[in-house]
């Protein structure tokens, strides 16, 4: 099986994530799209690791999963704190800081 299709898929996933971060308004969906971008990187790493017959890429991908989990925990924590403060959960309305 040709490995390049996996790379095409990972590039599409990355693009989907990037577009999602740019156009979606809910911070929760933005977090999901960030995960998509990181996992696109993981897929590329694993594909290359397989092509090269080298384990380093897989180790890298495992560690990235842990890091991605950390980021989501922090993101959800901040969103919950914002929700409790009755801050609108819409990134277009987060504009107390402008100028």
């Amino acid at each position: 099986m040709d490995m390049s299709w996996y790379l095409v898929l990972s590039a599409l996933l990355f693009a989907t994530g990037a577009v999602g971060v740019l156009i979606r308004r809910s911070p929760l969906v933005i977090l999901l799209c960030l995960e998509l971008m990181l996992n696109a990187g993981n897929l590329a790493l694993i594909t290359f690791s397989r092509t090269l017959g080298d384990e380093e890429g897989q180790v890298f991908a495992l560690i990235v999963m842990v890091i991605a989990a950390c980021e989501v925990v922090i993101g959800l924590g901040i969103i919950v704190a914002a929700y409790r403060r009755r801050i609108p959960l819409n990134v277009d309305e987060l504009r107390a800081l402008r100028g």
Partner: protein
Amino acid sequence: MDFQAPTIDYAGLSPVIALTAGLCIVLLVGLFRTAPGFMPALTLSVLAITAGLCIWQWGENESLVEGALQLDELGLAAALIAIFAAAVATILSIREPSAQDAGQGAFGALLLGSVLGMVILAQAQNLLSFFIGLELLSIPLYVLCASAIRRERSLESGLKYLVIGSVGSATLLYGFALLYGATGSTEFGAIAQALGSGGLADDSLVLIGTAMICVGLAFKLSLAPFHQWTPDVYQGAPTPVTAFMAVATKAAAFVALVRLFQVALGPVADDWNTALAAIAVISIAVGNVGALGQDSVKRLLGYSGVAQAGYMLAGVVVATQTGVEALVFYLAAYCLMNLAIFVAVVVRERETDRGDDISAFEGIGRSRPWIAWPLTIGVLALAGLPGTSGFIAKLFLIEATVEADYTWLGVAIVIGTMVSLAYYLRILSAVWIKDEPAPAQPPLPAIAGGGPLARLDGLEEGSADVSCPKGSAGPLGAYRCALVVGAGVICAAATVAFGVYPDPLVDWATTAAESLAPTL
């Protein structure tokens, strides 16, 4: 399958180990009720021990943990700058509302975690340890930015930083994946070897990968056009965190950038140095123009940070040893002068109810000389006036650009500096020329001290020659206030001292740059 445990040099790894152990201790002790001032003291002592270990290892040059980290003076120099910034941020955070909300223990532990990430990042010699260091640096900072959990702006800045920082990380990761695919290794040395063997300079994986790495790191370093988050986050985050973030992140990330681009991507320098030069010029232009109309001093410093990052990037673009030397000198000088300004911002934020607005500084030249002078020196150094280390730092950078035939980049730095005077001098005119506005109602005591007692104390003290925040009255008051003002005075004094007699700092920067020399 045979598995061989890596050989670990514990002496070389000792700064990382000390920080990790200290982080756990601070976090656990923070769960108990302790005397006020104990947690910051514990955090400071962990930082002092780590700094001591860094100085002890100064001069060693070896690869740690099978090439994951590289112990050399360049990495240690960045680590020392980060540790100094963290120490000042800890002093500024004593009785700060954000640190009170988070708990001084958690605040200190997060700060130490971020410093740990910086130490790892500055020493990273492998794409994997680079990424871990970068995330370990960023994730605690997201929390610290949002740590004033009762302030809407702090939460907003935390969320913005998280989203934009993660986009940067994901882009960087994708770039790393492509680079790994093209070269077949994650180690800087092996990558350089694969790239140097020819045929890969035009490879599309390498080109796209390098571009994505540039973008990802530009997000982290707040380089234009990836800087939009900087002013918002700087303004919204608690001021001690902003101070730490502004100087320490830059030091670690720039040193890591130098190592990545000059060691791993050195053989394909033609692919990236024009792109980085363009980013540097755009940053200088956008940062300086953006800062012109700002009324919030923290926002202004955010934009000025974008411009300063552009200046520093010139030191990377030239890809010479003089360039790295100028960069390390600039990072150290930048750390001192920026912290001197942030001390004044923290003090005035607590004394007045105008926050970090420029009007909060009106007339403090006469009433608060101990804050006004460090602020003035810091601002003049940022503007690069002679007699301060900022001047020497800019001189070295311009010299490095001219030497490497990037004279136009040097010209861009000079023009940027001229424009920057417009907004730097605005702060100084507020401090020295304008009169202190008569308060319409009695000034509010700072949130920090809290309670009616602090308010009474604040009013009774009057405003004549008290250089302390009024809200700090309490068992820790005078002591804490001396620490805060003292930190500012030390930073300002060092800025002037290295401006008049720069030799020690120059030698330090040269040693750091030379440790990278074999690979240049």
